[in-house]
């Protein structure tokens, strides 16, 4: 019997590349969970890997949480901000856990990945063995078209996950967290990204 199920803990990974707003998105989500008075643990990485390398953030919520890191294969939702970043996150996914992948259908070029451009179908095929459900959404494209800035796609995606009940965090908590954490200068565009997440259907 997994204690996990009893306590209804929920484990989230945010995967992407440095510079995509991962830490901001993670902190907004953490703040929203904090505002709902649930236990929260999050683990970030700073420094060199933030310079366009692969970054994975762990976020855990629920009750009696000790570890800031998710055990292998124990993630409920993996939020991927660049589709090739699916691969470093596979370690934390499993079919038995019923991991859901929410993937931003976008590419951030890197000289270390010159000829690596798997199709969405190929990605799906590979991660099928690790997942219950895979959702591709062109978040960066939508943000670029509607708001002129791709960087807010991380906020769009956590909001989308909340509106579609992919995470047990209420949209209004996320909005409140955005308003309390984002500097005034950037608040408007982030709130717009949040609002668009409700309207988009997939």
């Amino acid at each position, binding site marked *: *019997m*997994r*204690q*996990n199920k009893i306590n209804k803990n929920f484990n989230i990974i945010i995967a992407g*590349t*440095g*510079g995509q707003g991962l830490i901001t998105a993670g*902190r907004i989500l*953490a*703040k929203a969970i*904090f505002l709902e008075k649930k*236990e*929260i*643990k*999050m*683990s*970030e*990485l*700073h*420094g*060199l*890997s*933030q*310079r*366009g*390398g*692969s970054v994975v953030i762990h976020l855990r919520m629920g009750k*009696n*949480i*000790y*570890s*800031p*890191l*998710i*055990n*292998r*294969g124990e993630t409920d939702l993996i939020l991927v901000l660049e589709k*090739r*970043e699916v*691969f*470093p996150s*596979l*370690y934390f996914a*499993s*079919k038995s856990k019923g991991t859901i992948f929410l993937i931003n259908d976008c590419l951030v070029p*890197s*000289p*270390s*990945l010159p000829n*690596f451009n798997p199709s969405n179908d190929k990605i799906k095929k*590979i991660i099928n*063995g*690790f997942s219950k459900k895979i959702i591709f959404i062109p978040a960066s494209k939508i943000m670029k078209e509607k708001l002129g800035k791709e960087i807010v796609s991380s906020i769009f995606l956590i909001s989308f996950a909340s509106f579609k009940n992919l995470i047990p965090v209420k949209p209004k908590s996320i909005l409140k967290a955005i308003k309390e954490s984002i500097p005034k200068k950037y608040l408007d565009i982030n709130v717009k990204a949040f609002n668009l997440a409700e309207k988009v259907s997939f």
Partner: protein
Amino acid sequence: MKKLLLGNEAIVQGALEAGVQFISTYPGTPASEIGDIFFELKNKELKHPANFYFEYSTNEKTALEAGIGASFSGLKTLVAMKDFGLNVCLDALGPFVYTGSKGPTVIIVADDPGCHSSAQWEENTRAISYLTHIPTLEPSDPQECKDFVKFGFKLSEKFKIPVLIRTTTRVAHQIQTVNCQKTSAYRQTEKSKNKLLKGKFIKNPHQFVTLPPRVLEMKKELLEKIEKIKNFSEKSRINFINQKFESRKAGIITSGTSYLYVRENLKELNLNLPVLKLGFFYPLPEKKIKNFIKNLNKVLIVEELEPFLEKEIKILAKETNSNLKIFGKNLLSETGELKPEDISRALAKFNGKKINIIQPKIPNFPKRKPIFCPGCPYWSVFEAVKQAVNSKKIIFGGDIGCYMLGGLPPYNMQDYLLCMSSSIGIAHGIEKATNKQKVIAFIGDSTFFHSGIPALINTVFNKSNPLIILMNNQTTAMTGLQPHPGAPAKPDGIKIENIIRACGVKHLEIIDPTKDFKKMVATVKKFLIKNEVSVIIARHPCARIK
């Protein structure tokens, strides 16, 4: 009052609650945010300035020495740095533990098991606790970060000794809800304005001068002090057992984040074992440990990196329970960060439980490596050098900063990389040893101010001729854009070119590699054939400066 805090933020919160008066640091991941938060607090709300002193020092040694001066003058002092930084200030730390502190002093050091960002070696700073006899505490999470800083100040005050708090990446960069108290007023009011920083140095060579024969007396006094602290540690609640354990035959001893993984996995595996959690690393509460192990058949020691606790406990077990079976590094790796599933596996084996985790094989995929930011001036520097030289013949000396990414694709220009400012120091040695191989040493401006100047002077003094490319992006970019003595370019900022000239360098050019690319290429070629050391200052601000 509850706050959602990062480990490093919790350290600041604890220091403010304790009424810290003097803070010095040199930035380094994973400790950088500590200084950054104090810097921000210091520089905002200028109407009511913060009534603590804060500085980014030129390096960790000057930071600690500044802190020692403040402590000798009676102020409550915090000094923060990353693991390698403590090595830089070891020269000052040893004697400081002998003299002891006057104002309570806490030193924060952040290790990085797994080398996420401190990539040059996997340091276990706990060895320095043995070397210097500095009392050392190890928090597990942000709540303990805050509590241990306050406790550390009390300990320091009680025993007149500096206290080291050792975090790791997963503690420093862990976020959790923390119970906070009101911070003591750290903003100046009209009333308090002129009462600030009332430190006073009172002459006392008996305490502050470390010279024989007094120095050996000091060592004796220190060892006596440590015995007293050991007794104090025995009674301290920061070393605790999580449940009653009289009837148990197996137990676990752990510290730091390992404790969190142990608790999490005991819950997951439905195991009910007593856990002795050690908040003190040095000195250890030996009686408490002996009491814990005396009736056990077996014990599992869960600690990251080298088995320091395991070795100590083996000795204690010999005295108290020689039949005790001790498990530790036979089940857990000494290399890399411990992952929660490593501990799950170790716990299962320790208990003779079988866990069948069948996971599909993860396919091989190409790894994304870090890279210079878009608009980074270093693109132009490395491109210019690539065009100017035969990369097979020239040796490229790397150093600590974003430019170490020049060693990765697409440039692959890095033939050695060790520590702060070693690009120059090692270049000198290679040229002396080989007599004809030519080295180009890359070094950043903050790194140059940190420890590059003595290395540059050595090339002049002992006559070698590397080409040094000083990456003058006017900030400490990799750790989060902290200022350094040459930046921001204020009228009173130190001019890096003046220092270089004063060191006796004859061949010096200042070039903006993004605007004057051709000159950059030509100068690299021209300087490579000089018989004396040459320096190009590649000056263009970091793309992240807003």
